[in-house]
């Protein structure tokens, strides 16, 4: 009896998801609004999308954001995967406590602190603020998210596979690339996507660490939103939501297919 999905459970799930999704749906619907007033419906139109694409400042901010996100996500994935490997493989080394502390603290560190402290470092090192400093800042906080995602996959990893490769004479590097990496690849990919969206999304840390000519899209959106809600911003937001949502959905469907294929292969192997 306890196993049944009770009406109470159904209601709380439906209500919870309504709360999570209605605001985004409304935002998307009103981006197609004819009227300049965001909250009064006056018919379907895509003119705000055209306006957004014609807005040079917005488009250039979008390019800056994309460049920052691509570079920082890739670097963060490499560093984060290394950090996860270090934590999973080397259970004892000097300074491990500090290391794991530094990996987990950025996950909950308020952005204002991370942003301010990095800025002070760049000023002390006499580095001019610009797109490079934003990239370095983004690498720093998103590598920790990558590390956590990859580490959870490594925790469930069968160690004996890698040991077998080493026994058969593979170098540790070779064993990593031909045994460990293919197994943790889904987590590494998920980590990259997470790092990419975190960078795409970040306002506060970019605000502290960017310089003239390196205005990111969130910074641009934020400064416009302070002046008031416009359908143009709704259109930009809808594009962003659409891009990220389709990326996540495609990735998870592909991974699911891969898993299904692997399970079938394993079943066949077990039978044969």
């Amino acid at each position: 009896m306890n196993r049944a999905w009770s009406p109470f459970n159904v209601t709380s799930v439906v209500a919870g998801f309504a709360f999570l999704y209605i605001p985004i749906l409304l935002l998307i619907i009103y981006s197609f609004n004819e009227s300049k007033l965001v909250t009064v419906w006056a018919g379907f139109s895509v003119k705000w999308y055209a306006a957004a694409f014609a807005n040079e400042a917005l488009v250039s901010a979008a390019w800056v954001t994309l460049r920052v996100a691509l570079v920082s996500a890739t670097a963060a994935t490499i560093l984060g995967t290394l950090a996860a490997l270090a934590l999973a493989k080397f259970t004892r080394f000097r300074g491990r406590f500090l290391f794991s502390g530094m990996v987990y603290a950025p996950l909950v560190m308020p952005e204002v602190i991370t942003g301010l402290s990095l800025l002070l470092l760049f000023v002390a090192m006499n580095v001019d603020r610009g797109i490079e400093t934003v990239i370095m800042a983004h690498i720093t906080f998103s590598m920790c998210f990558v590390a956590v995602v990859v580490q959870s996959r490594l925790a469930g990893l069968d160690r004996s596979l890698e040991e077998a490769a080493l026994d058969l004479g593979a170098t540790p590097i070779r064993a990593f690339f031909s045994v460990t990496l293919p197994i943790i690849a889904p987590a590494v990919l998920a980590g990259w996507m997470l790092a990419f969206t975190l960078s795409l999304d970040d306002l506060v840390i970019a605000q502290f660490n960017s310089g003239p000519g390196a205005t990111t899209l969130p910074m641009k959106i934020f400064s416009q939103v302070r002046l008031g809600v416009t359908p143009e911003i709704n259109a930009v937001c809808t594009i962003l939501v659409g891009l990220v949502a389709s990326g996540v959905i495609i990735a998870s469907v592909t991974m699911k297919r891969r898993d299904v294929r692997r399970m079938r292969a394993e079943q066949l192997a077990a039978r044969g």
Partner: protein
Amino acid sequence: MKAVWNGVVSRSVIWLPYLWLLIFFLAPFVMVAKLSLSEPAISIPPYNPVLTLAEGPAGWWADIKRFSLENYVFITQDSLYWRSYLSSVWIAFVSTFLALLIGYPLAYGMARAPRTLRPLLLMLVILPFWTSFLIRVYAWIGILKKEGLLNQFLLWAHVITEPLTILNTTTAVYVGIVYSYLPFMVLPLYANLERQDLTLLEAASDLGCTRTQAFWKITWPLSLPGVLAGCFLVFIPVVGEFVIPSLLGGADTLMIGRTLFDEFFLNRDWPVSSAVAVILLLILVVPIMLFQRSEARSREAAS
């Protein structure tokens, strides 16, 4: 030679990320601490540096003697700062509680859903987490403002006769925080509740427990690690939240993240904003350590 090279490479797994975090995560905190002890100045950057590395140990000692607690004294004297700290902690506390109140039934319902439906539900919780934080907060402006969709709906349904003022109040900040941080609460809760052994509940009901009793005697105590993880994941970042109070809050919504941001960008007082950051960090040190400990424990339990 080859063995040495292999050793260097496998050690680089540690020192590469370690070095990066030391330089870009730990060293900046030292900078903040140092700057919070120096004096403001009208220059670029706007402070008088105490302690420059080039001077050598003797120079450092002279610099250290110049450290002043002036900025900290200033923070304690101006009521804006301690009121911001108190109200941030209070807002974070209340919204963590609200998120738990909404998130627990949601996670519970998800964990008891038919097995085939669960991956889809899980993805639906994760998806908003991937979409921009800023956009999700922005979406609420159109809903909560005076001529916004919520007021239109309530007027149309004859629930109210006058539009409510919600935007730019602390209520709107609560709505925004609970909305934005709900997935952080739901995910650890779901992970915990889904793993629970349901035969325990059957045993309880065989022994005469009602469903409510069984929940409070079995499910709730077993879910406490998930509750704790969720609460930390919401509470700690919310204390320093900037975007939500600055977009949804009013002039009287004091939160320390916003105070720090304004101090830095509007008043351009870097030493005082550093001191504000140091105190914020001190407030959060205990919850962060507790969070780390509970994380370490759950990892050990998993492996």
